[in-house]
Structures are given as C-alpha cells and as structure tokens.
C-alpha cells in the first residue's frame, strides 16, 4: 500500500502516452492528454497525504489538529479548471484541421502537404 498511489500515477502516465501515440482520431488524442494530466493529480495528492489527518478546513475543527498538505491542493485546484479551457482550445484547433483537410486521422495528416 505504501507505493500503490505512485504506481497508479506511473501507470496512468504510460497508458495516456500509449493512447497519444497509437491514436487514430484527433479528438481521442486530446482526451488522452487529459488522462496524462490526471496522473499528475494522483502523484501530487499522494505526496501531500498524511495518514489519519483531516482536510485543511478549520471551520469546525480546532486549529491544532493534524491536516493534510494544503499547498498541493491549491496547485491542483486551479489546474483542474484551467485544463478544461485548454482542452476547449485544442478541440477548436482539431475542428479547424478537419475543416481544412477533411480528416481527423493523424497518420493521414502527415502525408498532406500545404
């Protein structure tokens, strides 16, 4: 158990990378990039966790209770929301590619010129 989250993070990264490399559809490729990003969330979460600690919200618990790391949570929070906007930008790029070349297959796109 002590190394399971790290193993899951590595597995998600490699599976996402395999999806990017072996993809036949640009939209599928963009979603696999999202899977790679979620592997970084698992890794950050695993680094910040303390066994038996509570969430770092001190509204109803006294100030001295052991809590998990709030800094890595702050990193992940903005990243989750910003990632979706970047995926929207990538999808807009994919739509424009499809409009110009008529295909969404990365292998065929490589052969087209100009």
């Amino acid at each position: 158990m002590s190394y399971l989250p790290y193993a899951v993070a590595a597995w998600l990264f490699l599976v996402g990378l395999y999806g990017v490399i072996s993809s036949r559809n640009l939209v599928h490729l963009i979603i696999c990039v999202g899977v790679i990003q979620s592997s970084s969330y698992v890794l950050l979460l695993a680094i910040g966790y303390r066994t038996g600690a509570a969430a770092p919200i001190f509204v109803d618990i006294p100030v001295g209770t052991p809590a998990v790391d709030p800094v890595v949570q702050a990193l992940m929070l903005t990243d989750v929301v910003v990632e979706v906007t970047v995926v929207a930008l990538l999808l807009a790029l994919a739509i424009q590619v499809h409009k110009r070349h008529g295909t969404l297959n990365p292998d065929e796109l490589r052969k087209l010129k100009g």
Partner: protein
Amino acid sequence: MTRRIRLKFFLVSAAALALCFFWGYAGLPAFGHGSSIYADIVNAISVPQRHITDAVTAVNFDIRGFDTLGEEFILFTSVLGVILLMRRTKDEPAGDHEDKAPGRKVPPVSDAVRVIALLLLAPTIVFGWYIVVHGQVTPGGGFQGGVILSSAPLLLYLCGSYPKVRGAAAPRLIEIAEALGAAGYIVIGGACVALGGMFLENLLPLGKAGTLTSGGMVPFINLGVGLEVSGGFTLILLVYLEELMEEKES
C-alpha cells in the same frame, strides 16, 4: 516509420521510463508520511494570522495570490483563442437554424426535460454564487463557483430555445463581465501598490475568521475570479453553440 515499428519502439521506451519512475519514487517518503514544513506552517498560521478558515483558499488567493493571477490569465487567453479560432470567415454561408440530418424532422424537447431544467435554473445560480462568496470559509471559491454558474445558460439551452439563450446571456454583457473580472484582479493589486504596500499585499482589515468578510481582500478577489471564470466558460459555450445554430440572415 510505420505504425507497428512506432508501437514497438514505444514499448521499449515506456519500459525505460517506468524504470526511471521507480528509481525516482524510491527517493520519496513512503505514502502517508509526507513531511513538508511549508504545509505545517500554512496550517498553523491560516486562522490566527490571516483569519481564513479554508487553508487552500488562503494559499491560492492570499499567500500565493500572484500565481493564481497567472493561472487566471491562462484561462482568459484560452477563451480568447477559442473565440478567434471559431470565428466565421467570409466564405462560409450562414447555415440552418437547427442542426438536423437531411430528411428528418427535429423531435421537440420533451416536457419532462423542460420542467426539470426550468426548476433547476434558479437554484443553480443561487448555489453558484453561494460557493463563490463562501470561498474563504468553507471549500469553494471563485473557480468552482464560476463553473457552476456557467452551467445555467446550458440548462436554458436544454429547454430547446437557442434564441432565448442569446437573449438571457447576451454575449456583449458576458464579455464585459469577464474582462472586468480579469482586470479587477490587477486593479486590486495595483491599488495596493498605490496605497504604499507591495503588489497584492493584503491591506484591508482582516475581520473575524469564519465570517463572510474575513480575509481582507480575499472576498473581492473571489468575486473577480468568479466573474471571470463564469464569463469565460459561458463564452466558450456560446461560441460552440453558435457554430452549430447560426441564425437565419434576415
């Protein structure tokens, strides 16, 4: 190289990458025994010094507010990029009012969907603002509340009438709101410099921890970020929908 050679090459390099991962993980502390001194300090000073009960919001908007400014502008730039990429060029004619397959009538939206969407519309907006405003007390803040707020035009669209969406969420107003939210962050920081402090230094009175007015400048920054995120997501939604349902040129 052909596809099969590419995949075999990937498997070899993935094995090498996995070995690098395991070698790197061997240097980390075991899961559950992380010992970050910065985290301990932030947890200890969040309520006594900064009067904010949500330590994550304290890190995001007060202690490391400058980094959140950068993240917010990543969002702003991506929305700008989507709008620029999806603009209609001169050689595209205006399409049908509804997106339909040729030869098939569009089925009307069922009444159950319309009733539920209309019932959920007002609670969604109220809940979104509740999450935005309570960022410094309980889990929440500008980012989460902004995304919840941007789902309200989507509910309106599910009722089946795109012109009503354009009427209720006029693009000009949304653009102004988004720009105000993004600029507001910088104006707040600049006001701190003008008053003699550092950029984004918390100069307002800090208030009582656990109330809505705690944290000094954090409520205003939360409002700005909430406006900006909700405006950005609504603009993306409108741009994508408009490409599907272009209005009839009269």
